Structure formats: structure tokens, C-alpha cells
């Protein structure tokens, strides 16, 4: 076993699972939208950024009033973060995708429109907030909660991981138990037939974007809490990684997105231990290419309708 794997492995694993959880939350948005529309929502990274920014603003408002609520404020700030994420995602669908859908535009048109929306959104935030990193107010002081092997697991790791797990279970049950969830699965399987059976396709698509946006917004707040800062272009790298994670797990597959996110987080963190941090992104992309070549449908296979 190479030295890099044996020495710092536990701490790398913990870090990998935490960032992986954030990737998983974003990846769910890619996967839901892809499952329903067969469309890579390229602007999803800006949804994440929007959530992160809303969380920051909320936290600043809280601390501005002199209160030191600690963790409670973090949980509270998840709400505006998620709402902002949902709002951005629904607005994207409404203004960048729906006009194209009305016209049965070519697939390329959606991707270009998405890239345009991504540029526009991040630029709006750049103009509004400037190009400096803004520090997230500290809500919780990092302290080790438990020790696994030689690695301390901090409270923030636990918060991120648990939040991800809870949201994943809620989403999974939502898609299975509610009427809207059934609609999502129906449209993912066969939009035409679903439409004929009386499913309001537009509403289902809006709901899909909303769900993905809520999760990405939460991921944005958690990311801000974990890494302590945010900026207009903060969404780019996590967005790409999350897409990679979604593909890794099998795009369109909800549980696959979680598995892919965690796997990618662990692989790149452990790999960074071996090759150095500057190669993190390269490792993630190489993993993506390898997975696509060996198993194009990802680890758990594709499709919201079939597997969700």
C-alpha cells in the first residue's frame, strides 16, 4: 500500500465524505432535471451560488442584530438559502428553457441557453457583490465530536453529512409517496403518455426544478459554512464536480447521485493525498472519463422513472 494511503487515510476519508455530501446535494438537482427533460441544467451551479449568497445575507442580517445564536442561526439560514435556490431554478426554467420547449428547439439550443443563463447570473452577482470573497459569519465553532481511527470528526462534518442524508431520504420519499412525485416519475418515463393521462407537464417540470433548486440552495449554505466564504464564481467547480458525481452514479438516478457524490468526494480527496491538492480537479475529471468509457450508464444505471 502506498504511503499516502496508509498515513492520512482516515482524515482524507472524513473530508471526502463531507465534500462528497455537498456534491451529492447539488448532483440531485442535475439528476432530477436530467431524468425529466434529458437536459444538463448547465446553470445549476449558479443556483447553488444563489443559495450560498442568500445564506450569507441571512446570516449577516442575524449577526447584524447582535445576536449570537450559533448553530440555530445556521439552520435558520438554510431556509432563505433553499428558497433562493428554488427561486433561481424556477426562474431559469421559466425564462431560459420554457420558451425553447414551446418551440421544440434543438438540444444544442438548450445547452447554449443554459450557458448564457449561467454567465448572466454569475455576472449579476459579480456586479452586485464585487469580486472579493465574502466571509461567512461563523455560526458554530469547529470542535471535534468523535474520533475515527486517527481522524477527528468535527461537528460541521456531521452537520453536512446528516443534512444531506435527511434531505436525500425526504426527496426519495417525496418522489415515491406524493402525487407530484408520481408525476415526476411519469414524465421521466414517458412525457407524451404522461401528458395524455392528464399530468400537467409544465407544472411537473417546474416542481422538478424547484426541488433541485431547494437542495442546491441548501448545499450552497452548507458549503459556505464549511469553507467559510462565498463569491460570484463559487458555483463553478462544485457544479462541475456534482455533474460528474451525477454521471458517476448514473444520471437520472436519485440514489445514484448520492452514491456518486460520496464516491467522487472520497476519490478526489484520497487521490489528492497521493498526488497533491493541485491535482484534485484533474483526478475528478479523469475519473469521469474512465467511468463514462467503462460504464456509460454510471454505477447504478440511468433513469428517474425506472429506479427512483
Amino acid at each position, binding site marked *: 500500500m502506498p504511503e499516502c494511503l496508509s498515513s492520512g487515510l482516515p482524515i482524507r476519508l472524513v473530508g471526502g465524505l463531507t465534500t462528497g455530501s455537498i456534491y451529492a446535494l447539488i448532483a440531485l438537482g442535475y439528476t432530477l432535471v436530467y431524468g425529466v427533460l*434529458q*437536459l444538463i441544467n448547465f446553470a445549476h451551479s449558479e443556483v447553488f451560488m444563489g443559495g450560498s449568497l442568500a445564506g450569507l445575507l441571512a446570516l449577516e442580517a442575524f449577526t447584524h442584530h447582535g445576536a449570537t445564536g450559533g448553530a440555530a442561526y445556521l439552520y435558520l439560514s438554510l431556509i432563505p438559502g433553499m428558497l433562493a435556490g428554488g427561486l433561481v431554478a424556477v426562474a431559469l426554467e421559466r425564462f431560459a428553457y420554457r420558451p425553447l420547449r414551446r418551440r*421544440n*428547439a434543438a438540444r444544442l439550443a*438548450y445547452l447554449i441557453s443554459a*450557458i*448564457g*443563463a449561467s454567465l448572466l447570473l454569475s455576472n449579476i452577482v459579480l456586479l452586485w457583490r464585487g469580486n472579493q470573497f465574502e466571509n461567512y459569519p461563523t455560526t458554530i465553532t469547529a470542535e471535534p465530536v468523535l474520533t475515527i481511527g486517527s481522524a477527528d470528526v468535527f461537528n460541521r462534518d456531521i452537520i453536512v453529512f446528516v443534512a444531506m442524508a435527511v434531505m436525500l431520504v425526504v426527496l426519495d420519499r417525496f418522489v415515491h409517496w406524493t402525487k407530484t412525485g408520481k408525476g415526476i416519475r411519469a414524465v421521466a418515463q414517458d412525457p407524451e403518455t404522461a401528458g395524455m393521462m392528464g399530468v400537467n407537464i409544465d407544472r411537473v417540470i417546474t416542481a422538478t426544478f424547484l426541488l433541485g433548486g431547494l437542495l442546491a440552495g441548501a448545499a450552497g449554505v452548507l458549503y459556505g459554512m464549511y469553507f467559510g466564504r462565498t463569491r460570484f464564481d463559487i458555483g463553478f467547480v462544485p457544479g462541475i464536480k456534482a455533474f460528474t458525481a451525477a454521471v458517476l452514479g448514473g444520471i437520472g438516478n436519485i440514489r445514484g447521485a448520492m452514491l456518486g457524490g460520496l464516491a467522487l468526494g472520497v476519490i478526489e480527496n484520497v487521490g489528492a493525498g497521493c498526488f497533491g491538492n*493541485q491535482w484534485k480537479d484533474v483526478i475528478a475529471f479523469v475519473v*469521469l472519463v474512465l467511468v463514462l468509457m467503462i460504464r456509460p450508464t454510471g454505477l447504478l444505471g440511468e433513469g428517474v422513472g425506472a429506479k427512483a
Partner: protein
Amino acid sequence: MTALLATLGALVVAGLLVVAQRRFGPRVMSYYDRNHRWAFPTTFLGFFTVAALLPIWLNVVQEELGVSVGVFALLSLGLNVVVGFAGLLDLGYVAFWAIGAYTMAIFGGTGPLHFAHLSMWQIMPLALGIALLAGVLLGGPTLRLRGDYLAIVTLGFGEIIRILAENLERITRGAKGITDIPSGEIPHDSAFWRGLVDAGVHVENFWIRVYNFFAPGTDHPVRPMPTGRTVVFGVNPIPYYLLLILVIMVMVLVIRRLNESRVGRAWAAIREDEFAAESMGVPTLKYKLWAFAIGASTAGFSGVIYAARVRFVSPESFVLIISITILAAVVLGGIGSIQGAIVGGAVVTLIPEVLRSLSRFSDRFIDARYGIFGAILILMMIFRPQGLVPSRRRAAELKGGAEETKGPLGAGLPAEAEIAAGGADAPA
């Protein structure tokens, strides 16, 4: 201020032309038949003659801008082959440009391989080969992927090349970049050069003489040539501008011929329905590789000229936003349209200039350029997906309605698209 007015004027004229084409297109087109055998040679020569003579009326800053326009026009010409003809969305196109520029820098500049000390002319074929090889190496394993996956993998490739440039410090000098890249030059002592001089031809002064003929007394003096190793290009933008025009002319001819050949028909088939093409016996992978290789080598060429002109490369010149800018150029001009690619390349270079001139009113304008690109991309996809100078065939596809190219949740109406593609002269 004049630069602002000129660019604004150019944009207004372009807008009016678009409106006029929509309004009067059918009637005018009946006088100017696109398919007439003289139509292409006259427009081609006319356009590039005007472009080559343009420096007569420009100052040095505008000439510099002309070089940027040329670099981007060449890039969007190359990406147009990949995205427009073969229908492959490449989001990491900047990588090939970077490869060209870094080849020039590493073999010509103060990099670790400076002892090679090759000139721009020697590096050109080398960079062409390396970029082409990179295109094939990337394309080989990834071109089997479905369209959306390809987009993300190429994006990853673009980032990987940038990260490599940043971290392989022994070869690329990392974030510091490579300086002192030799500019283009024609050595005085080469046999070719002596032959020209003996024949009484002074190439280095030729265009300057032409400009002086048309516009005497402007700032284009005939410079006395230093003896020995003549630096023709130096800091003067005009030679690069003219070289770019020459390269673009050659590429336009090559790409046009290819697009009208068996290769071009294969591209159209792949773009419209890959499975159908494959089952009709079109070797899709081979032709997709063709598109990738041509796109890559065009970008490599552009990279060499760019590096020779700015004489400095560093990783931060090759970020994702450049790939997206080139894509914006292709889309703006008209996906799959050669004229469109050149127009698009010019427009994306000039928009930031217009905004820069506007920044006398507010600093925010120049920061807003990518947001404006973004808005333009969205609006174009909604209102004019075929671009400013559309390719008729591609316009019909992008307008939608065709069963085989339908996007998410599209119910197809193939008949309509076929009528449009089949060709009435009316713009779609």
C-alpha cells in the same frame, strides 16, 4: 471616442442588415443568387481585400484590435467545424488554442526548451501537429459518448490543460508564464529572402507601400530595414493582421471544400441523426475525429500567432470563459455558417471594446461584458437561433420541429422542417 463610434456604427449597420435581410431578403436575393458560380469568389475576394486594406483607415490601437478579431475569427471558424458542422458541443476548445500558444512559447521563448530556438514559421507546423494529435487523443476515447456527456468531458479537458500549464512548472513555468516569445520574423539571410531581394521585391514593405499609396501621409512610414536578421513583424500589428487574414482565407477555402465533400455530408448526417447515419454505413467515429482534428489544428494555428503577437503566455489566458466566448461567437454568427463564424468572431471581440468605451460613464460596463454575452446567448436561442448570418440548412434544424433533432419534450413535425431545409429562399 472614435473607436466607440466606429464600433457602435458597425453594430448598428450589422443590425440594420439583419433587419433588411428579414424584410427585403427574398426580393434582394432574387437579384443576388447565392448559388451563382461567381457569387462565392466575388464575395470572398471582395471581403478579404477590404479586410486587408482596412489598416489604411485604422490607428495602431485599432490595428491591435484587428489582430484580436483575426485570432477570434480563426478560433470560431475552427469551433464552427466541430459544433456547427459535426454537431459536437466542445466546451474545452480553449485547450487547443492553449496548446498552440504554449508550443510557440516553449520552443521559441525563454522556457526550458529555449535552446530549440525555433522561429514562428518552424513552430507553426509543429503546433499544428501537436494540436491535431491532442484533438485525436481527446476525441478517440470520448467521441463515442452522447452529446451532453461530450460537452462535460471536453470542458474537463480544457480545465486539465490549464491545470497542467499551471503545475508543470519545469516545462511551462507555472503561473508565472513564459516571456520573450520571439515575434514573427523573416530572416534576411535565408535563400528565399535573398532570392526575393535579388528579384527586387521587398515583401516587408509591400503592404506599407500599398497603404501609403491609398492614404499618403498617414502613420505608416516605410521603415528602413535593419541589416542582418530582419525583424519584419516586431511590435507592428499589421503583419500579424495580414498573416491572420491569409490563414483565415486558406481555412475558409479548406473548410468550405470539406463541407461540400463526402466529409461534409457525413457531418450533416451525424449531426442530424447519428444512429441513422451509423446504420446507413457512415463511419461516424472517423468523421467526428476529422471534425475534432480540423478544429484543433485551426485553434493551434491561432494560438501560435497569438503567442507570437503578445509574446507572453500564462495559464490565466486560457480559462473556460474563452471557450464560452468562442462558442458565443459561433452561435452569434450562425451555427454552421462560415461567414457567420467570422462575423461572430468580430462581434465578440468588439462588444467588450464598446463596453470599455462606455466605461467612461460607469466602470461597471466592462465588468458586465460576460453577463451581456450571457443575455445575448439566451435571447439568440429564443428569438434568432440561426444567428446573424445563418446557414440555411442549419437554420431549419435549429428552428426546431424536426423529429430527429427535437430537444427535450419536443413533439416533432418533420414535414415542416423538410420544407424549410429543402429550401425556399425566404429566410426562416
